[in-house]
């Protein structure tokens, strides 16, 4: 094959060259920036190092913006000669999805991450003052790694990165397509387009928010490493604190946005499914929350320096780990939306290990030990790269080694506070809360990592179910909410117990009363007596969770009103805590009281198989039938196709006292015709203030089947009837009016007896259609003559007479197009789910308010 000899027409080679130039620029410049920042830190008196380092980082920034700009330019102009453009966009796709196309692929999502780092890096250059050199060195180093993910070169037989500017005809996956051999292939080429599942506004807003959240975890990480490098174990925290809480706000809203997307557009049947991809972004958030709170402790009393270092580092490491989990394809069966494997898992794993190494080696203050640890790590890395071996025992050995080194460094070199915290002090309970958060994050990580453990140790453990996760995490949530309620009422160092009780007793009392009333209504009246044993224990747990949730809301409101005197400026923390408690209350009530509206009348019980088994949660709706469902009556009106979506119109009625049914609303659950990914169902939800009605089609005759089988007659149904009896067809009813016989033929030899059935078919408009099927007996042979009613698509065969009973037998077959369309539906009611969404917004705004306040204080103290 010799591509060079072919002149391809219409290709825009220059754009790709520009893109590749920017990739190389961003990679090289970030590397140079890291080196210069290293020397700037070593030679603080020589300002030229810092100047050069900044220039390099600016060059890196230009490179990254250049890559992004080039890729957008290519997408906007449909340059399908580039594989990435061809894979992720198409001519018919509306331009508003251009952002979604941009970050649909792995390369694009790495770019999104990179560009946030660039923006954050440029802010840090302006704000980090004497921390600039070490902090920016870490940032630049991270950028070296991220930029290399786009290189797409082969080093020592290992492919490093995946280049977004690869030509389609040079892409290893597509270069053998026959059509790319034609010089004019571009003239007719259209892109494969954006996966229709991702063509919605969530895909436009969710990834950038989440990646900004991920990018923000870099700041506390970089500051923590910088602090360790400078041997300044507490100084870095003041500057990192507002960044950390900005990260908490953004990452938190990003994670919850993922939940909202799943709830609105995917068919999980809820907003949180403990999917590995969801967990992978939740866990860094939990750890970041822990890190932020110990930073607050350290502002007042430097007692948990190591904890702060550890958690700040861990949050970023977990972001890398989650990238590894979701991008390496290792999750395979256990996740619905893991990215596909681009063969970069080795590279991702090495980055993860490299930054763990960096975080440990920087706190080993003994030069010889640090050197020894570096040599051992380097050996492992080389063996992976040069000999291409990646045995799990090597990985486990290195893990144990790193853990030992980390613990030893903590014991030997970290400054520790000898003073004992008082039981009645805020720092004590903040610390306990952080510990609980950490343990909770660890358990979620362990469960999510089961596929990894299976791979490392050869186990066959199955992935955890939603119920198992819930059982585990609810106790942690209870402790955290209780701590959220009380901790602000403690003072640093020592609290006056009498005052503490005086301040908190009202909200405690109100919470007991309020949550007592609510949980009796929700869990203990009718529900409790009907519930099986297992469920009763759950109800008690839910009531406790509800109580601490309500307590957290009231206590923080009290704190704001009584202690802070209602001042909005300093209320950020209280507001954020109220928001978090509302998220938990909303999640609890809407999930535990999630009510299945759809039922079927199947009498076969499967309960004896176990509590997970149920065969009554779907309902069959035939077009035109109205069935009761919960407090409503539903009717399947029919379906329409809009573009790639088939919309099923489901009408909801309410019955008035006089028996009349009035239409309340329509829902349009849909099926998306998706050739590449398989047809996908999308639910539709009606939102009310106090509940949501969620409707989801789980099965429908696929449109292809429907069309091919629409002609011809179905299997005949036999009917034994007398004169005057009625037959039922799907579109009419038919009365056997009379039977007539050609009597004159009686008794003759070789006679033919003909009995004619007179059938009167009444259609929906009561119009009468007649049919005359004939029973013909000739020489003891029955030869029926069929009759058809073409307008109604009915066919009759009169084939038997039973003289003893006086009945006749008539076969009825219907044209298949008569058969009514049907759908299988699941419908749920989620009560009070709006508390959850309101809580999200309140938590987000409260956290940002607290950040704004911190920045103001920081600026004041800096002057």
């Amino acid at each position: 094959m010799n591509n060079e000899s072919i002149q391809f027409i219409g290709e825009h080679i220059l754009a790709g060259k520009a893109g590749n130039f920017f990739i190389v620029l961003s990679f090289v410049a970030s590397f140079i920036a890291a080196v210069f920042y290293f020397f700037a830190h070593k030679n603080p008196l020589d300002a030229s190092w810092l100047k050069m380092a900044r220039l390099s980082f600016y060059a890196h920034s230009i490179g990254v913006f250049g890559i992004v700009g080039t890729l957008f330019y290519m997408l906007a102009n449909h340059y399908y000669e580039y594989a990435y453009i061809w894979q992720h966009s198409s001519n018919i796709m509306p331009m508003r999805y251009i952002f979604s196309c941009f970050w649909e692929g792995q390369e694009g999502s790495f770019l999104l991450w990179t560009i946030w780092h660039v923006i954050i890096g440029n802010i840090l250059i302006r704000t980090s003052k004497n921390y600039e050199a070490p902090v920016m060195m870490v940032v630049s180093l991270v950028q070296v790694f991220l930029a290399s993910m786009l290189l797409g070169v082969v080093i020592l037989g290992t492919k490093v990165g995946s280049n977004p500017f690869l030509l389609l005809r040079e892409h290893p996956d597509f270069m053998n397509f026959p059509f790319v051999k034609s010089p004019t292939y571009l003239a007719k080429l259209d892109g494969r387009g954006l996966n229709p599942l991702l063509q919605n506004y969530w895909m436009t807003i969710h990834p950038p928010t989440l990646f900004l959240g991920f990018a923000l975890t870099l700041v506390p990480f970089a500051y923590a490493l910088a602090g360790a490098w400078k041997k300044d174990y507490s100084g870095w925290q003041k500057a990192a604190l507002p960044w950390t809480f900005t990260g908490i706000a953004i990452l938190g809203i990003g994670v919850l946005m993922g939940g909202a997307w799943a709830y609105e557009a995917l068919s999980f049947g809820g907003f949180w499914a403990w999917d590995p991809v969801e967990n992978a972004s939740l866990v860094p958030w939990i750890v970041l929350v822990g890190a932020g709170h110990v930073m607050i402790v350290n502002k007042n009393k430097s007692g948990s320096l190591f904890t702060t270092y550890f958690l700040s580092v861990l949050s970023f490491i977990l972001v890398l780990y989650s990238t590894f989990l979701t991008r390496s394809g290792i999750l395979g069966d256990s996740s619905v939306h893991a990215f596909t494997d681009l063969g970069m898992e080795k590279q991702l794993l090495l980055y993860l290990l490299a930054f763990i190494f960096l975080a440990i080696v920087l706190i080993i203050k003994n030069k010889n030990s640090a050197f020894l640890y570096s040599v051992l790590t380097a050996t492992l890395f080389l063996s992976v790269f040069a000999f291409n071996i990646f045995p799990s025992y090597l990985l486990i050995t290195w893990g144990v080694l790193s853990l030992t080194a980390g613990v030893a460094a903590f014991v030997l070199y970290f400054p520790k506070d000898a003073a004992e915290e008082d039981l009645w002090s805020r720092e004590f309970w903040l610390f306990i809360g952080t510990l609980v958060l950490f343990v909770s994050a660890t358990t979620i990580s362990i469960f999510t990592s089961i596929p990894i453990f299976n791979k490392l140790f050869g186990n066959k453990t199955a992935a955890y179910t939603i119920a198992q996760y819930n059982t585990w995490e609810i106790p942690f949530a209870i402790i955290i909410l209780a701590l959220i309620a009380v901790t602000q009422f403690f003072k640093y160092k020592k609290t006056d117990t009498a005052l503490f009780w005086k301040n908190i007793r009202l909200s405690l009392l109100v919470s007991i009363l309020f949550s007592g009333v609510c949980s009796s209504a929700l869990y203990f009246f009718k529900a409790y007596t009907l519930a099986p044993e297992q469920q009763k224990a759950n109800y008690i747990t839910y009531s406790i969770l509800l109580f601490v949730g309500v307590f957290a809301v009231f206590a923080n409101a009290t704190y704001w009103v009584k202690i802070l005197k209602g001042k909005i400026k300093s209320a950020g923390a209280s507001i954020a805590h109220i928001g978090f408690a509302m998220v938990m209350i909303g999640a609890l009530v809407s999930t535990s009281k999630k009510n299945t509206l759809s039922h079927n009348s199947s009498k076969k019980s499967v309960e004896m198989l176990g509590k997970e088994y149920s065969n009554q949660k779907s309902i069959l709706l035939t077009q035109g039938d109205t069935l009761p469902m919960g407090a409503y009556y539903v009717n399947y009106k029919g379906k329409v196709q809009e573009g790639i979506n088939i919309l099923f119109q489901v009408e909801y009625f309410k019955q008035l006292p006089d028996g009349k049914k009035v239409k309340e609303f329509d829902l349009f659950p849909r099926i998306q015709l998706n050739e590449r990914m398989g047809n996908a169902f999308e639910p539709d939800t009606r939102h009310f203030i106090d509940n949501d009605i969620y409707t989801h089609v789980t099965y429908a005759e696929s449109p292809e089947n429907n069309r091919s089988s629409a002609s011809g007659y179905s299997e005949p149904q036999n009917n034994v009837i007398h004169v005057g009896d009625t037959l039922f067809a799907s579109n009419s009813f038919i009365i056997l009016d009379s039977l007539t016989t050609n009597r004159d033929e009686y008794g003759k030899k070789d006679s033919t007896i003909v009995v004619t059935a007179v059938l009167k078919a009444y259609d929906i408009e009561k119009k009468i259609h007649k049919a005359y099927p004939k029973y013909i007996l000739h020489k003891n042979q029955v030869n029926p003559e069929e009759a058809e009613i073409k307008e109604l698509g009915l066919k009759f065969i009169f084939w038997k007479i039973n003289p003893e009973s006086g009945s006749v037998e008539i076969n009825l077959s219907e044209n298949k197009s008569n058969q009514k369309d049907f759908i299988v539906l699941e419908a749920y009611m989620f009560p009070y789910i709006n508390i959850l969404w309101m809580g999200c917004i309140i938590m987000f705004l409260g956290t940002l308010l607290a950040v704004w306040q911190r920045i103001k204080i920081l600026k004041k103290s800096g002057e």
Partner: protein
Amino acid sequence: MKKTHIIGIIIIAIAIGALIATLGSTSTYADFTEAMANPDTEYHVVGKLDKAIPTEYNPGINPDEFVFHMVDNKGIEKKVVLHKNKPQDFERSEQIVLIGKMKGEEFHAHEILMKCPSKYNDTKNPVATN
């Protein structure tokens, strides 16, 4: 020793204890032979749909019952009763993971995960428009 350390150690010890206890009782991946040996234990069984035997789905009778035959990775075939609606695109699935248990000669599943052909690995030629 500080109070925080003591409480910390207690919390972590409880968590580790509970972890070990639950990890032991967690369901595991298995094949039909193993599931048959322990009829009331829940397993995840991986296999492929046997396309030669027709599937049964009569939503008019029960929309939450779907019957098909699956061959596990060891080649053993069993009748499967899924107590759910028939999944969309079921026939297109390349691989099936069932969660459930054996009851007599039938495997009763309450959950199903399907792996469909991936959009990246398909070798289909693109459709050229005119």
